[in-house]
Every structure is written in structure tokens, then in C-alpha cells.
């Protein structure tokens, strides 16, 4: 149990997929304009990660080594299709806001990276914990980035205006602001990590 908890916890800070492993930065930069988008993307990616980790961990002994990547992609694409259809049916607004980045989860290096580096070598139980931890870390990172960007760049929190007379700092609504925020947060994570060791 202890080991499984460790697998879960590591994704949040120590091996945070965005700030420490620097995986899946493309959707992070693109969808973090608003907190609702960030949360939606985080949940979608977590679901795909969970599904793909479970299945890849189950089929790891059947799949020949040479063709493992195409097999992983098929598994991941299946879950992405489920997510996309589900999103289209129940939350079309979010689907429109995320746009191409939902189907692009297929090639999200975080999902494939966990499949290749972790799920294909570990038990199902550990893979579930890893997927949940990584997914939570990714979601929290997205929420943090999109929170900073939305509050500073638009003056809103989940779409609600906080201060009436606030003059939005427009740069945070632009892609350059996303790079700036991610860079600063990465350096902050690096600082915290260095202080611990």
C-alpha cells in the first residue's frame, strides 16, 4: 500500500508532468487561457491516461516489442475518441473551446511517455496509481497556469469577474504570457526541489 501511495504522490510535485518532466507542454500552452478550459483538459487527459495505463499494463506481455508503439497509439486513440465523443455530447462548449487539442491528446507525450516508461513495465495496480497521480499533477499544473493567466489576463476567476475596476494585463491572455508563466513556475519548482535536497 505504501508503495502505491508513493506512486500516486510523486506525480503531484516530485515528478510533476508539466513543471518537472516537461511533458505535454503543447496543450498546456494552448488551452490554459481560462480555468474552465484548463480543468476540462486536465480531466480529459487524466481519463485517457487512466484508460491507456490500465490497458497497456494488461497487454504488456502479449504485445511484441517491435510493434509496441503502434499498439499503444491504438489504445490511446480509442480512449481519446471516447473522450471526444463524450465531450461533444455532454459539453459542446468545452469541446469548441479546446478544439483540436482534444484529438491531439493521442500524441500527447505525457500519455505515451507514461505508457512507454511506466505502464509497460508495471503491474495494473501501480499503473492505475501512476495514471491518477500524473493526471492529478497535470490537472493541478493546468489549473495553476490557467488560474494565473485568467486572473491577471482577464480579471476573472472561472469566468466570474473579481474586481470591477481591474485593468487586465493583456499579455497573460496571449501565448507569450503562457510561456512567461510556465517559465517562472518551472524555475520556482526547480528552486523548491533544490532547496529540499
Amino acid at each position, binding site marked *: 500500500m505504501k508503495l502505491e501511495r508513493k506512486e500516486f504522490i510523486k506525480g503531484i510535485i516530485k515528478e510533476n508532468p508539466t513543471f518537472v518532466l516537461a511533458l505535454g507542454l503543447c496543450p498546456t500552452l494552448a488551452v490554459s487561457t481560462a480555468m474552465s478550459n484548463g480543468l476540462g483538459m486536465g480531466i480529459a487527459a487524466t481519463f485517457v491516461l487512466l484508460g491507456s495505463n490500465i490497458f497497456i499494463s494488461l497487454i504488456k506481455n502479449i504485445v511484441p516489442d517491435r510493434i509496441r508503439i503502434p499498439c499503444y497509439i491504438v489504445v490511446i486513440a480509442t480512449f481519446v475518441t471516447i473522450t471526444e465523443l463524450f465531450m461533444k455530447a455532454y459539453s459542446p462548449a468545452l469541446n469548441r473551446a479546446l478544439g483540436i487539442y482534444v484529438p491531439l491528446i493521442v500524441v500527447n507525450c505525457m500519455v505515451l511517455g507514461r505508457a512507454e516508461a511506466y505502464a509497460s513495465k508495471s503491474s495494473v495496480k501501480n499503473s492505475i496509481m501512476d495514471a491518477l497521480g500524473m493526471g492529478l499533477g497535470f490537472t493541478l499544473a493546468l489549473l495553476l497556469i490557467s488560474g494565473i493567466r485568467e486572473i491577471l489576463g482577464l480579471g476573472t476567476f472561472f469566468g466570474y469577474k473579481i474586481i470591477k475596476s481591474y*485593468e*487586465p*494585463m*493583456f*499579455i497573460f491572455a*496571449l501565448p*507569450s504570457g503562457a510561456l*512567461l508563466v510556465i517559465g*517562472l513556475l518551472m*524555475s520556482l519548482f526547480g528552486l523548491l526541489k533544490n532547496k529540499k535536497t
Partner: protein
Amino acid sequence: MKNIEISKNKEDKILSDGVNKLTVSYSPHLHTNQSAAKIMWSVFLSLIPAGIAGIFIFGSKALWIISLGIISAIATEGLLQYLNKKKITLNDGSAALTGLLLSYNLPANSPWWLVIIGSFVAVAIGKQIFGGLGQNIFNPALVGRVFLMTCWPKYMTSFMKPLNAGFNVFGSVNYDAITAATPLMIVKEGEALSGLSYWDLFLGRHAGCVGEVCILALLIGALFLLLKKYISWHIPIIYIATVGVFSWIFGQKGLFSGNFLFSILSGGLILGAFFMATDYVTSPLTRKGQVIFAAGCGVLTSVIRLWGGYPEGVSYAILMMNAATPIIDRYTKNRIFGK
């Protein structure tokens, strides 16, 4: 046996005397009487005429912007160094200079928080995050300005009209308008410049940023720096000449129809070329590199002015060439003697 001992004692004595008389040290043995602090404060001093001219043209508001910029930049630097438990280096004047340069790049009617946020970004993100003076990739003051320009273009492009009090002895006085377009904005809109002579441009009788309008005052400061040899002529002169020639070649009415003098005298070109492109930290080290750097700045400035979305491109041009400085330095390395 005894003899040797005596001589040994003697040797020791000579050696110990020698230590007192001669100081043995590693090279370099020649020292100039210069320090980073001295140069920074000299640049600061050389910028003061332009500030006085700005206050003369835009009134007490300009003084308020300038002092606010300097104070907030110094406060940011002190605070960050205190929080990081680093040595507090406010005496070297680099923070004060950053604040001064930033305020020179703002319109005189900017709100107070704009200046403070700009100074904070300039010092914190422009400099301290890279490790302080000497480590920064980009010119801190320009980082602050471009940040403000992206965040609040509304405030950064509404320029105050000159006060005209006493200073404007030639032109007609119009007290109605509070804000006005800069000469470059007027030209970008495709309108003709009316009632603005080169002399007006040279003395700064037009809308613009606090410290960039009075070319005369800037040139006095630049001359001081050149005579003191704190800056060499290469970067500023090549930069300005490139902008002039480029604007002349690609004029609005076809090739070779541009206005050489206007392109040089308008906007922040003189301030940028003499005081910001020549920043030691962010410009190339070798002469050859400096020439490439200056020409690049000139071409980029003209391209932004002529075909870009903004009327003025000096700050973006310098920042882009700052980013290219490491690669310029790598390819223009001087040959090592004997190799």
C-alpha cells in the same frame, strides 16, 4: 655547517623584507580607474539633460513619472536581493538606471501603477531572475516597456501633447488637445505632417515619450559618454545610419523616396541607439559583432516602422538583437594570438 645556517638566516631575512617591499600579484597589472558603478552613474548623469528637457516639454507630470520609475526600480531590486539573501547592490546604480530608462520610455501621462509595474517587471523579470547585473539576456528597461506595451497598449500609445509654455516660440499654440499622436504615428496613418519642422523634431516639440523627444539633450549626454569613452561610436552611428538609409530606400512613394532626416529624428531612435543598444551586458563584445548587431537593429527597426503593426520598432528591434547577441559573439570571436 655554521656558515650555511647563517646564510640561510640571511636568505629568510631578505625574503621576509622582500614581502614587505614588493607586492607579487597575478596579472592584469594595469588597472583603469573604472568600475561598473562609476560607468552606471555616468550614464545616469548623461541622461539627465534629456530628463530636464522632458520636464520642460511635458511639465511636472514628467518629473513625477521619472522619480516614480527610479524609486520603484530601486525598491524592487533591494526587496528582491533582500528576499534572496543576496548582497544588496543598490550602489552600483544599475537599478536606478533601469528605472530612469524605463520612465524615459513612457508617455508623460501614464498612470502611476503603470510605472511601478513596469519597473518591477524590468528589474524582476528583466534582470534579477537571470541572476542580477551581468547575467541578463535582455535590456531590462526594454523588457519592462515591452511588457507594458503588450499589457496596456491603450495607455502606452496615448501621448501627451507638449505644454508649449514658453518653449514653443515658433509654432502656433493649441491648448485644446491633451493627447496627440507622435510624428511616427501620424506618418503610419498615411497623413501628412503639418506644421512640424525638423527643428521641432530636433528640439522635441511634439508628442512622445518623456525622454525620447528632445534629440538635442540626448546628443549632449551621448557626446559626454563618447568623450569619456564609455561607449564607442560603432553601435549608435551604424544603427542610426542603417535606419536612415533603409527608410530612405524604401520610402512610401517608391524606391529612394523616403525621408532620411525624419526617420532619424522621430521616435525613440536616438535614445535607443546611444543609451540602450550600447548596454555592455546585452550587446556583442567584439567590434565586428557590434557592427552586425547595430545593422540588425537598424534593419529591424525600419522593417517594423515601415511594414509592422506598430508605428515604432526601436524597443522590439533591440530586444530581438539582444536575443541574437550570444550567437553573434560566437561567430565573431577574435582569433587567439598565436593560433
